[in-house]
């Protein structure tokens, strides 16, 4: 797992949350903004938000673990999303995941020890015509085969 960065600037947390009224219904939106700001949700940010919304920490922790768009641990520098929508699944997305596992030694949901890659499976990306699809950072790769995986990972310094 990638290490939690020790020196984070929390003044930006205040900037992020103060864009919203102090109402419970903005909880998820604020958490997502924090996620985007730090690439995960630092504990300190959660404590600051608990005070801002006057809501128990446990409630925010519950939300942060329920919604998979949010992460309590830092993600890798490169995020690999393998689409496991049904169309991709029957066009063998599992083989792709196996190959990535073999190369990077991480399973879906994990981040490599050196913090360079995170692997996730995602629900349908809506690009079924080019199944199976993977996305690395924001770049789409369609009609991916096991053979091409090493090549694609190589573009990001994998192996």
């Amino acid at each position, binding site marked *: 797992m990638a290490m939690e960065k020790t020196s984070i600037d929390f003044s930006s947390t205040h900037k992020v949350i103060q864009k919203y009224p102090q109402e419970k219904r903005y909880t*998820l939106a604020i958490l*997502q903004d924090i996620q985007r700001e730090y690439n995960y949700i630092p504990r300190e940010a959660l404590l600051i938000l608990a005070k801002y919304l006057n809501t128990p920490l446990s409630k925010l922790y519950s939300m942060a673990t*329920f919604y998979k768009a949010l992460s309590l641990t830092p993600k890798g520098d490169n995020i690999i999303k393998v689409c496991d929508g*049904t169309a991709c699944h*029957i066009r063998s997305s599992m083989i792709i995941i196996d*190959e990535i596992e073999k190369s990077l030694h991480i399973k879906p949901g994990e981040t490599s020890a050196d913090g360079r890659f995170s692997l996730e499976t995602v629900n349908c990306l*809506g690009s079924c015509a080019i199944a199976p699809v993977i996305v690395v950072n924001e770049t*789409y790769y369609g009609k991916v085969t096991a*053979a091409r995986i090493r090549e694609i990972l190589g573009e990001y310094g994998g192996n």
Partner: protein
Amino acid sequence: MGANSQKKVLVCCGTGCLANNSLEIYNGLKSKVSAASVAVSVEPIIKATGCNGFCEKGPIVKIMPDDISYYKVKPADVDEIFEKSIMADEVIDRLLYVDVATGKKVQSQNDNDFYKKQMKLALRNIGEIDPADIDDYIERLGYQALNKVLFAMTPAEVISEVAESGLRGRGGAGFPTGRKWKQCAGYDSFPKYVVCNGDEGDPGAFMDRSIMEGDPNSIIEGMLIAGYAIQSEMGYIYIRDEYSLAIKNLAIAIAKAKERGFLGQNILGSGFNFDIQIVRGGGAFVCGESTALMASIEGNVGEPRAKYVRSVEKGLWGQPTILNNVETWANIPLIINNGSEWFRGIGTKGSTGTKVFSLVGKVKNTGLVEVPMGIPLRELIFGIGGGVIGNKKFKAVQSGGPSGGCIPESLLDLNVDFDTLAEAGSMMGSGGMIIMDERTCMVDVARYYVNFLAEESCGKCVPCREGLKRMLEILNDICNGKGQLGDIESLEEICSMTSEAALCGLGKSAPNPVVSTLKYFRDEYIAHIVDKKCPAGICKELTSFYIDQELCIGCGKCKRNCPAMAIEGEAKAFHTLDMQKCIKCGNCIDTCKFNAVKVGEEAI
């Protein structure tokens, strides 16, 4: 090119085409036009549109008014398209669609097999307009229904019209929309709310995405009309977190609608107020369930509640709320403009109107199609869909996503509507149709859906959480060769209980994929459990391949495509497979043109 015939070039920028570099094409054409502006008297308009639906053949570029459609366009084609079809009136043959039956090239989108049989109602504007340009929407009768409703209809008349149309919810359950609105209008408690369910979570479904991205104003107008009908002043559009472009385009549309006075206070001078806020999902499929969605809007985790008291009575913040799906909303302005009788004339008696289906999986023409309800399933898959890729044998079609069931070949002649699909043991759901062939393992399909639901379940109730956990355990064992006698009975016992005792729709419909595959493909389960074999050649532990020496001609294609270097053989001599090295990816079977690679073990 005459001064009056200003060319309009529509470049599809739906997510599918974008993934195939259509933005580069759009930008390329735009820069060519601006660079040439000195020589051009009438500047052609280049528009980025939403999804055309024919994703298999994307990126798609259309030239109007010539009515030319180009497919599989590459950025390298930009120069030629500009020179020949924009600056002049020529057609580039090689980019045209080829009619499957006649082999002839087809110029207009309307003449090609994929679109000919379609009736675009909910998708009427997509691919024809720039979703960020409200004038494009207005030009195509946009906001006229709103005008009619505000100044020429009472709320009761609006509800009546929607009820008479027979429109049923397009998100899944197919509840009569007019009846829902009428119930909500009957409760004397304010404020009331109007909600759009844009949490399209079914894997393989992307129709709502294409409407939200490609024609956001149709949703806004639909919600405004409902707001007027039930006296609500506030609407929420809940959009799945993964749909960034949909969120962006809806936000733009809302801002522009406000600028023009279609949203906000005193709309069009009518005295009616209505505002819409976008709420972004957090990556939870269960939030597509209406009560979970509302819990999420309120700032909680997306846990559903029992629906003994319906949301139309007590929904968001305990207030009367209407929740409808994106496609349902897109239909509303049409029903108001053209009347309920017109809508009733389309489709079947019990399921009026059209439905947008997404055809995905092992089908040739992957994409979105909108057809009248009642179309024969065979027509949908083989007629419009073009049949199975590689002309392999059709095995089943999964409809309704994780809440639905699979439909085998024997039922292909049913006329698709809400009731026929339910009768067949499946459901309409969002309209996703996943086509499966002989190389799909139906036990693996059941396992895939149960695995999906086990992670997406909110986890609150025992039948869903524990039921799915144990169904998954059994199905994993079966697929890994550890299936036991009694497993099928255990699965059936758990399915039977969960389908009635679970707290919400997700749990209650979770058994469907298992029940339907057990019903139609029981022999596959038995092969896995008793014979320890996977007939389709998918479950790795139970699969082996071999090359039939009678059929192999030694072309070497399989060897070249093998990622594990498990195939040996000289050119023109038969090849052999080393099962020790084989990773069971199936590339060889899929690439062999001679059907020489077989599932199973070679007879000695």
